[in-house]
């Protein structure tokens, strides 16, 4: 948590302006603003965690209690027997890993073609890729659903893999990165007789580890948190992801406020841990592309 949440490029820059003004009032106001913002951002998370440790009655008592009278840790045990948490988390993990793997692999592969090989129609095709980043998925989810149903993929985990794994984002992010690698390097390898596939695998891939990591994290987080895709495609309860499972759990146990919050914490926790481990790459990914719907 103490690591700087800044892209490497940002950190090497000259110190930000304004620090020399150093007037006390300005600083004080700055800290005040930061404090207020922190509370506004963190309060819901704090409340989620605290409520998961309260009794159901205590969640909604007036005045609001900001600490549980007696922490109910047993909720974190109970929820596994009261819900199919294991199945949900298992499915979500499986999907996240599969989608991320495919997105990183096919995205970086295609990006090499776009960035380092010149052929007619290439730029027009890339424009098409970019264009779809601005098209909301919600506008073509119906024909896509019809199509996947015709392939008999609806109500299978394959549907989610299919709709998530071939997005334009990976291609876009990796192409940007590959273009920052000088052509001379590639040309030198070509003169040495290395094939294009060899160049991709032995030169580009190792050089692009940070970009690959940021793409992997972006994809992992968005697949983990995807709600609409699974909502449309995964009908059988044994295929549900954590998002779908949690939503059903909420409607089934609508009075079990504490347990609902326990489930919520469990759905957020893995992704927060992954984010904290890889935040550097995550942030770089967002700062360089900014394109994540």
């Amino acid at each position, binding site marked *: 948590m103490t*690591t*700087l949440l*800044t892209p490497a490029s*940002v950190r090497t820059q000259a110190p*930000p*302006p304004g*620090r020399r003004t150093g007037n006390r009032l*300005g600083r004080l106001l700055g800290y005040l603003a*930061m404090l207020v*913002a*922190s509370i506004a*951002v963190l*309060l*819901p*998370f704090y*409340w*989620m965690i605290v409520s998961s440790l309260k009794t159901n009655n205590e969640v*909604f008592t*007036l005045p*609001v209690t900001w600490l549980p009278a007696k922490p109910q840790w047993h909720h974190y045990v109970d929820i596994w027997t009261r819900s199919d948490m294991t199945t949900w988390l298992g499915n979500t993990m499986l999907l996240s890993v599969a989608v991320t793997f495919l997105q990183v*692999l096919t995205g970086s*592969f*295609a990006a*090499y*073609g776009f960035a380092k*090989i010149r*052929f*007619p129609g290439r730029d027009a*095709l890339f424009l098409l890729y970019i264009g*779809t980043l*601005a098209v*909301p998925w*919600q*506008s*073509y*989810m*119906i*024909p*896509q659903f*019809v*199509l996947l149903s015709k392939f008999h993929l609806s109500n299978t985990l394959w549907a989610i893999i299919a709709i998530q794994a*071939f997005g*334009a984002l990976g291609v876009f992010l990796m192409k940007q990165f590959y273009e920052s690698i000088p052509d001379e390097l590639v040309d030198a390898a070509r003169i040495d007789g290395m094939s294009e596939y060899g160049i991709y695998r032995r030169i580009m891939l190792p050089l692009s580890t940070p970009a690959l990591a940021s793409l992997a994290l972006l994809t992992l987080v968005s697949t*983990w*948190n995807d*709600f609409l895709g699974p909502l449309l495609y995964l009908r059988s309860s044994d295929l549900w992801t*954590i998002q779908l499972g949690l*939503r059903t759990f909420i409607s089934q146990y609508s009075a079990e*406020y504490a347990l609902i*919050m326990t489930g*919520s914490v469990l759905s*957020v926790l893995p*992704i*927060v841990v992954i*984010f904290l481990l890889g935040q550097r790459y*995550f*942030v770089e990914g967002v*700062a360089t592309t*900014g394109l994540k*719907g």
Partner: protein
Amino acid sequence: MTTVSPAPSRRGRVTARNTLLGWSFLLPNFVGFAVLTMVPVVLLFYYAFTTWDIFGGAEWSGLDNARQMMHDSSFWTAVKNTVYYTVFHIPLTLVASLGLAVLLNKRLRAVAFFRTVAFFPYIASIVAVAQVWNMLFSPGYGPVNAILRAVGVDNPPGWTTSADWSMPAVILVGTWREMGYFMLIFLAGLQTVPGELYEAARVDGANAWQRLRAVTLPCLRPTTFFVVVMLTINSFKVLDLILVMTNGGPGQSTLVLAQYVYRKGFEENQFGYASAVSVVLFLLCFLVTMVQFVVNRRREA
């Protein structure tokens, strides 16, 4: 084949070889992309002109869907609510994320910590986030209203249970969720502002507010433009947040276009009509983005 080939045909062969090579790299991704994105987008424009209920397939019905939309009050409510969300979500998120970025670009202690924290809402799952906010907003016992009462608001709003306050509640959560993300993009943009400009402004005696207006904002214009475009697209397509928080209600007070597509298509199985509504969503996004690009280009020229 021939040992000595004239230059043009040799170039031709290189081009052919490169085309083949290039496509071999694109293919694995392109097949998925073409089948699952491009084909559906094309099909969408065909389905929009068909009638299609749960039985049978798409039947061409020309402009029937368009005519139906004209007289469909729910559709117009959805359009109105989408615009409502957009008109408030964009400036709110813009100001919040830019404010955070300017604040966190300073050399203060704990800045790094907060930069990390501000991102949490964006990576947290929508279902959990929506549920927590619904509980925070709960009219009688929720902490939000408890705080409001404590500071002297006698009759705090019912938030998601009230037709007037449900949309503001959803917009607030939407802003809370996205501001950390756009803050980061602004932070990256702030690094490109030349420090000398601030020095010059300071020498001229400009105060902090004047420096923001005369230096920071103009230099950030490309970033701001990008953020506005993204916010517009995000606003037009808002669905999951609303689906989980209010499900369009109470009444139709938070029914948005994307949700209307979902409702018509997946709850009522009217694929044809839902596609027609999708086309409106598609064109709205496309047109507004285009207009923004044109205006931006004109301003730069």
